[in-house]
């Protein structure tokens, strides 16, 4: 009889320890979810509730929702907001809650986008609804972002909920400028004349454009009155570097890409290895805030040079109207 009792005691203690282990690690519901996911094939998600305990009851954040359905497409070159709503329950009454809450959008490796002034919009009994808009930048990475909401009460109790996620769409874009680019003076027979300003490419999306993925397609600028004459594309070079020594015009040492390699029908990488110790041509546009305007973050600058203005050219307009416009092409890939 004594042994039987001992077995029961051991079993009871063992079960109690197991039960407590599940509770302490919050693993029981996870375990059930895991089994459920195996049965239904649905993905499950783990929920982190961080509760800081002060005096009184701890508030709870529930019904955390977003207004976005499907992928969220950021506004090109700007900010776009996503609206987050949630409810808070506080057994001590709504008057015990702070009227402002925080919501942040998070993704590993990305800057947090936060609104610390989420407003209470409705309060009834022990429940209050909060809403707020959080801005995302155009360069914020694509993929899954987590919505994190927190609120504190006047006693210092803090509740947190991160149960909602949303997906940012993949966006590729750039703007080419300036609107007008000119050469100071082009005399027939002149050599190595660089455009007065650089062609600037600003990344307006959330994708990196890596080395080798910026290309150009150039055509001959034909005379508008006498189309036999023209500024041949082969007499232009382009480079991401400029120096007083006109490195941007030096196709011989590969410090500039000679556009003669371009047939007018195909694209060529603005990317090549310089000869010997001469600089390489490497063009890319990382995603980022190009308004910093440092030529690096979210930006690439290209220097166009006419290596030779044909001595045979006469007084007339030269344009791309006969052939196709020049095109700068960017490719985003995994």
């Amino acid at each position, binding site marked *: 009889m004594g042994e039987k009792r001992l*077995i029961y005691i051991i079993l009871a203690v063992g079960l109690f320890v197991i039960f407590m282990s599940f509770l302490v690690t919050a*693993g029981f519901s996870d375990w059930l979810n895991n089994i459920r996911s195996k049965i239904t094939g649905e993905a499950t998600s*783990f929920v982190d509730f961080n509760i800081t305990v002060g005096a009184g009851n701890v508030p709870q954040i529930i019904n955390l929702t977003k207004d976005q359905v499907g992928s969220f497409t950021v506004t090109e070159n700007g900010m776009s907001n996503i609206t987050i709503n949630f409810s808070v329950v506080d057994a001590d009454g709504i008057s015990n809650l702070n009227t402002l809450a925080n919501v942040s959008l998070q993704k590993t490796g990305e800057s947090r986008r936060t609104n610390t002034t989420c407003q209470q919009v409705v309060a009834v009994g022990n429940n209050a609804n909060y809403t707020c808009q959080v801005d995302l930048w155009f360069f914020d990475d694509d993929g899954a972002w987590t919505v994190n909401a927190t609120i504190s009460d006047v006693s210092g109790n803090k509740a947190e909920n991160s149960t909602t996620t949303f997906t940012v769409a*993949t966006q590729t874009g750039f*703007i080419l400028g300036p609107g007008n680019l000119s050469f100071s*003076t082009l005399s027939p027979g002149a050599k190595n004349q660089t455009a007065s300003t650089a*062609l600037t490419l600003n990344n307006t999306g959330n994708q990196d454009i890596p080395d080798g993925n910026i290309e150009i397609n150039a055509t001959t600028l034909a005379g508008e009155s006498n189309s036999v004459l023209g500024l041949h594309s082969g007499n232009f070079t382009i480079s991401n570097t400029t120096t007083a020594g006109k490195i941007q015009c030096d196709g011989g040492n590969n410090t500039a890409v000679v556009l003669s390699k371009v047939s007018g029908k195909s694209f060529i990488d603005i990317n090549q290895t310089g000869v010997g110790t001469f600089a390489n041509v490497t063009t890319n546009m990382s995603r980022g805030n190009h308004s910093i305007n440092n030529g690096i973050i979210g930006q690439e600058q290209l220097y166009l040079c006419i290596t030779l203005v044909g001595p045979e050219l006469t007084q007339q307009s030269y344009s791309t109207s006969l052939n196709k416009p020049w095109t700068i092409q960017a490719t985003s890939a995994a």
Partner: protein
Amino acid sequence: MANKSITQMLGIFIGILIILSAVASAFSISAPYMENRKLYLSPGESEELEFVLQNAFATEPTEVGVKIEEGSEIMQIIDPKSTYTIPVSGRASVNTQVTAPPNAKIGDIYKIRVSVGTVPAEGGAFTFGSSINHDFEVVVGEKPKTQITGEQSKGEIASNPSLYLIVGIIIVILVIFFALRKRKTKKR
């Protein structure tokens, strides 16, 4: 001397005429997010994908052309057009459909390139246009199982020490239980 000044005049004139105008050379294309730029489809399965065009800098509607540069054997634009007008401060949708061939083998990969370019403006000047390629792959087969969350993976759960502790306790209890039971049986 006279010849030199004529040449200079010509030079100045040509210089004035060569003006690059980079008009309508800004836009973007948004695509549905795909992990590692891979879309998984079973043989014969179709999926519609919506691409979104924007032009943040336009002061007038922008015309762009869209084409499936690579992979057109499995992906088509289902809109009855290939030129789209992006309204000022607005967006334009490009609707496409991807279908994995019914006879495709698991593991087959199809490269897709969606290309968007400005429609060249007619007329003079030295015009610059721009184009954007969006690349991804269609993989025939099942999508790899989704991780549970970005912060905690299944592997981490499996290596959770508390799980081992629980299993250990259960084993100890069972050993004690059977040992006592055996002892009791022997006494009888």
